[in-house]
């Protein structure tokens, strides 16, 4: 394996006809990093991944590994010479080859000695806990086993970059969690630089060093899982990360207390207060202040689990329970508040449908977004 420090993607753009699938995508990957492209289907995450491999030629932009340019749209090093490994959603094992032959495929192309190939295939199969499967054929194995073969087939070549395109999406829920743990353990052990594509926020949070949230081919936010989870950059990321209470709101007053914005606003039939930790140069702060000045409507973003049943210290909302979903340790309640807005929260105590309730939310658990933040990135096709 050729050693390197960073892989750098600069202004990568991919257009299909007049549709832009990936737009001005720039990102640096450090060696050993686990980066996830996260977004709903059609957001361009798979296209971006395929562009990095060279399987889909880019329209413009550049890809560098340290000071070696591997792609600048005019001159592209073909995928087979990039020393990247790829794992596909549908496994893509060669059905006419046994497990051992599948894993040996790349080694044989590199003209290694027979004994060396056999040893490395053995090691790779042990790594993914498939000793004893060498002579089976893909069709005789479960989806989880097949995906492990696919992973072994890549890591046996010690790729510079490992790319996984929704590798767990075809598996059932239990296997998905098992293989997720294994992927994490494998990455801890091998420290191979990895790009992982998924639409599943749980997978992204569990596995990644950094998450890249994409929408309509544009990067919405790049950050650590905690950053993305607790401090979304815009309404789209907030919505995707589970801030389900999006109520239209009208700001009554806004006060700058050091780094914090204290906003009083009316929403869901109540007057509420939010403490927003938006730093001075944050676009969220700028657009929120502008919206207030213009008297424009804004939108709240609150997680269901941050709303608590009963009278808290502040921010009471009166509502009527409409749908109660029992989920074991708690219930998911869908209620209707003033102005007809829907209030989603979780309750540890049982709630009857039709019951009049009061819920509260701490001021620092509310996010407010100006309307323009909801639209950023819109206007391009899937």
């Amino acid at each position, binding site marked *: 394996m050729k050693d390197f420090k960073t892989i750098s993607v600069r202004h990568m753009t991919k257009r299909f006809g007049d549709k832009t699938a990936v737009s001005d995508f720039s990102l640096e990957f450090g060696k050993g990093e686990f980066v996830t492209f996260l977004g709903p289907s059609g957001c361009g995450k798979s296209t971006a991944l395929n562009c990095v*491999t060279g*399987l889909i030629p880019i329209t413009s932009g550049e890809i560098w590994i340290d000071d070696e340019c591997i792609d600048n749209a005019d001159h592209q090093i*073909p*995928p*087979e*010479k990039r*020393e*990247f*490994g*790829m794992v*596909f959603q*549908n*496994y*893509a*094992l*060669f*059905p*006419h*080859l*046994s497990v051992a032959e599948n894993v040996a*495929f*790349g080694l044989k*192309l*590199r003209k290694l000695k027979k004994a060396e190939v056999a040893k490395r295939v053995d090691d790779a199969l042990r790594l993914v806990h498939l000793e004893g499967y060498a002579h089976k*054929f*893909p*069709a*005789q*194995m*479960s*989806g989880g086993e*097949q995906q492990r073969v*696919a992973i072994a*087939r*890549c890591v046996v*070549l010690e790729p510079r970059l490992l790319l996984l395109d929704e590798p767990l999406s*075809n598996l059932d829920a239990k296997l998905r969690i098992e293989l997720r743990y294994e992927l994490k353990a494998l990455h801890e052990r091998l420290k191979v630089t990895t790009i992982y594509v998924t639409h599943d926020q749980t997978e992204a949070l569990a596995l990644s060093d950094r998450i890249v949230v994409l929408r309509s081919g544009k990067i919405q936010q790049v950050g650590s899982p905690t950053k993305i989870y607790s401090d979304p950059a815009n309404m789209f990321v907030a919505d995707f990360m589970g801030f389900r209470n999006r109520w239209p709101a009208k700001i009554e007053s806004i006060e700058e207390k050091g780094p914090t914005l204290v906003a009083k606003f009316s929403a869901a039939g109540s007057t509420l207060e939010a403490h927003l930790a938006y730093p001075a140069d944050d676009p969220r702060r700028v657009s929120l202040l502008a919206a207030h000045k213009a008297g424009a409507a804004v939108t709240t973003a609150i997680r269901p689990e941050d709303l608590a049943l009963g009278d808290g210290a502040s921010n009471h909302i009166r509502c009527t329970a409409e749908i109660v979903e029992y989920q074991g340790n708690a219930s998911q309640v869908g209620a209707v508040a003033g102005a007809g807005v829907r209030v989603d929260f979780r309750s540890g105590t049982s709630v009857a449908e039709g019951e009049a309730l009061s819920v509260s939310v701490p001021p620092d658990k509310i996010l407010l977004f100006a309307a323009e933040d909801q639209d950023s990135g819109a206007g391009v096709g899937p």
Partner: protein
Amino acid sequence: MKGAEKGGVKLLLAPAIIFVLLLFLYPFAYGLFLSLTTEDGGFTLSNYAKFFGNARDFRTIWVTLQISVPVTFINVALAIPFAYYMRRGLKGERILTFFLIVPITLGTVLVSEGMLTFMGPNGWLNQLLLFLHIVKEPFRFTHNYLGVVLSLALQGFPYAFLMLLGYVSGINPDLEKASQMLGANRWQTFWRVLFPLMVPGIAIAFSLNFVMAFSVFPSAVLLGEPSGPTRVISIAAYQQAFEKFNFNAASAISMIMAAIELIVISLILMWRSRMYKGASIVGKG
């Protein structure tokens, strides 16, 4: 309920089974019976002995193989690259497919008549070759071995192509990407992934093309020299049946044709099972 449904499904197979019994098995069994009897109905092997004993008839096996084996190889070998390049679809694919299917729909006789005119000594093809000074005198494309081979290629290629196209386009495209990502160039991907997965399709295309070419009759009569170099085995059978009115001897020749075809198909299937060990054609779990 489920049992009743199953019974119902089986019943739906009945017309097809009756069709096969009436139109294939019965004539075949009757032919076998005829070939093993004398004209009075007694058991005999003389019909077979007569064929193998007559050098002029016995030769036809060799003559027919000389035509059918190369033609089959040409058709399949040409169909493989065509199918490969068209596996993801092309612009103008419909028009191309249309032109490939036309020779099938027109029928052998019409195509042969057309070729006689087009490729004959005064046909357009020779006119063009003369005009371009590629040949000094008209080249003989027809009424010889070449004529039969060309006509069989024209008729058989579309079958082989369409059959293989179905096979290649059914291969999961991610397999090619996976191969590429593991370091294989196009050539290596073709030989190590696509070709082995095409083997079952190649075997079927080869078998069907061979059977069609081996039982050639109209092209051999119209475009070849049916009295000599292209006196194929079906001509021998025809002459027994409709010139000498010996249906027993004609049936024996038909049975020999069938036996040779079965031997060749068995050889192809043996090759297929050696080449292809995997259990399924698609790369999905």
